């Protein structure tokens, strides 16, 4: 298919064909990272701005490496180094960035919806690298890529997502993505962490961890953010680990070959025990590896890589 979409703002707006196209492209690009010289000239002369308004190590590094392996020039700016600290509005900052003619802006922001705001104001393609509690489309795509790699087919799979659903953009994007691809999604967590109306995205909800992972093909564990304790969401990490932590006894409930996933960073001993994190079925590090390929695919598709490829 030809790629016509300007921005990657969320999973909801992507069609099934577009998702497949991204995953196929990523599969093809993965091999580049295994070469001894990990660089192709595909995006030579293109500029990618990594505009990160919220702290991030993994995602930013992943985009940075992805851009460089395609020979694009990538530049990072963060809230603390941009003019935002001098009182410039977000839109002004974005317009200034646009005036320097970048080919893609990758954006991370703590406020939900911010990539939408920017996409209305600037014509540069935007990739949402996480906006508040709303969406994290590249994480969902790399998760789908990782599952597809191991299970061949997403359709008909049963996925459990456990933990703090309410505050998780990863959960939201994955629910939408896996449902779109024909998988079944079950959610579990304490009721304080299950947001109102989440079932309407097509997921089943339970407060019982064991029930949620019973017979599933994939267990996706979400990170518990310690600062949430202040909002009375759970009494203590100790009790959370006991009731909702993924441990060796619990994974027996799932299929024997069930994949264990986590978007990182891990709180070992809280939402996941160390032995489960390092389990043979754990694909947590494969997720990170695939993240680079997936982001290469998106940069390639959005920065005019398709057109370049046709020129060859």
């Amino acid at each position, binding site marked *: 298919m030809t790629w016509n979409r300007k921005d990657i703002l969320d999973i909801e707006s992507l069609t099934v064909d577009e998702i497949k196209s991204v995953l196929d492209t990523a599969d093809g690009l993965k091999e580049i990272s295994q070469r001894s010289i990990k660089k192709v000239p595909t995006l030579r002369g293109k500029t990618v701005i990594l505009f990160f308004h919220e702290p991030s190590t993994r995602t930013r590094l992943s985009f940075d490496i992805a851009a460089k392996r395609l020979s694009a020039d990538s530049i990072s700016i963060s809230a603390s180094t941009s003019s935002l600290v001098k009182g410039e509005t977000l839109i002004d900052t974005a317009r200034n960035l646009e005036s320097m003619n970048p080919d893609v802006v990758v954006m991370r922001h703590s406020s939900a*919806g911010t990539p*939408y705001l920017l996409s209305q104001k600037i014509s540069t393609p935007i990739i949402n690298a996480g906006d508040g509690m709303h969406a994290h489309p590249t994480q969902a795509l790399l998760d789908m890529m990782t599952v597809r790699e191991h299970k061949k087919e997403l359709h008909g799979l049963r996925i459990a997502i456990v933990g703090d659903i309410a505050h998780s953009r990863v959960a939201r994007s994955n629910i939408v993505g896996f449902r779109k691809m024909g998988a079944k999604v079950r959610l579990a967590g304490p009721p304080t962490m299950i947001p109102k109306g989440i079932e309407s995205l097509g997921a089943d909800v339970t407060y019982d961890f064991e029930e949620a992972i019973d017979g599933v093909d994939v267990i996706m564990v979400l990170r518990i953010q310690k600062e949430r304790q202040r909002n009375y969401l759970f009494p203590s990490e100790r009790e959370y680990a006991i009731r909702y932590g993924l441990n060796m006894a619990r994974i027996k409930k799932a299929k024997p070959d069930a994949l264990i996933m986590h978007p990182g960073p891990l709180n070992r001993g809280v939402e996941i025990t160390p032995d489960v994190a390092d389990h043979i079925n754990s694909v947590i590090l494969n997720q990170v590896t695939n993240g680079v390929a997936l982001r290469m695919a998106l940069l390639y598709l959005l920065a005019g890589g398709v057109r370049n490829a046709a020129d060859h």
Partner: protein
Amino acid sequence: MRLIIKGGHVLDPGNIDVVTDIKIDDGIITDLKKFESDLPDNDTQVTRIIDAGGCFVVPGLIDMHVHLRDPGQEYKESIETGIHAAAAGGFTAVCCMPNTNPVNDNRQVTEYIIKTAGQFHSVKVYPVASISRGLKGLELSEYGELKEAGAVAVSDDGLPVSDSQLMRRSLEYAKGVGLKVISHCEDPNLSAGAMNEGLMATRMGLAGIPNASESIMVMRDIALCELTGTPVHIAHVSTKESVHAIRDAKSRGVPVTAETAPHYFTLTDEAVRKYNTNAKMNPPLRSIVDRDEIRKGLADGTIDVIATDHAPHSVLEKEVEFDRAANGIIGLETSLSLGLKLVEEGVITFETLICKMSKNPSKIIGLSRDISVGAPADLTIINPTMSHTYDVEKGFSKSKNSPFNGWEFKGMAVYAIVNGRVVFESK
């Protein structure tokens, strides 16, 4: 100065309902009868004749809940532009909330507002002073002096009075002074969010504000109203639970009154889709169930008043990240049209609409608003069929933060008359 309004359907609910002419001399209604000829030709005193054929002539509309932003935030609105926006919406009077800078908690600010508004000989402006000094919720403002200066009510609007003891004392003390207390009902510990709690908030990844954050305080204020025997007026009701609580209180004879805003009976949280900051306000737009209960409350008399909560904000506050955007929308120039839409949809009668937008709010703040000989000529002339498209860029308000831009309406105010002076006429 003599003004004649000819051939209008004069409707003053509970008082007059007839097609007749009105004679106004020096701002006072002096005659209410059909004149024999088309024009009293021989009457040399007539300075103006308005043909109101096909229109309703009603007691001047009053919006008892607006933010004029003056003093302090004149880049959003000034008393002058706010007055013109009000007049264009058919209003002849407004009550302005005290969250200005400085706060209207003293004689100087109250007098400044009244004096400034008076210069324009237009829409009447009745200041609402603050319940607590500086809106801080710690001590009472000086109600006696504020009343003397011209305040008609007190409210900490924009902020709740969290301390129940302070709220109790405010009600008690205000009773002695003769000021109405208007309550902004919100439990801030429950309301830390950016939009209504529910499906839309979950999908959009925004922290939600549950209905209970409002109704919990509505119930508290009803309890304090019963305790003190002092009337309380509940501002901007948005939830079905609040409507239930007020309906129940009224049935027990508790002297509580309530208002809602046009957006709460028109829109739902669906309007926030695509992170539209012009649909962000506090309380937030709620679900369809709430919207329908608000309509029911308007129809059965639970909700007495339609007030806009006109809240001008510039692009500086609105063209930003959704959770950082300011709360509120402008409403003066769309309120009547949205009310007429309710009439069109059969939710309330036209007569009821006039009660909610004129008779009831006047009564609540202690003003009279009658069309009778000897009364001041504060009148609104409404053409109920004239269709128009609302273009916010052509509006009179300095700010443009309306979710109704581009809406098509049937019915609008064609004249606003204050003390016998035409302060607005539609071109």
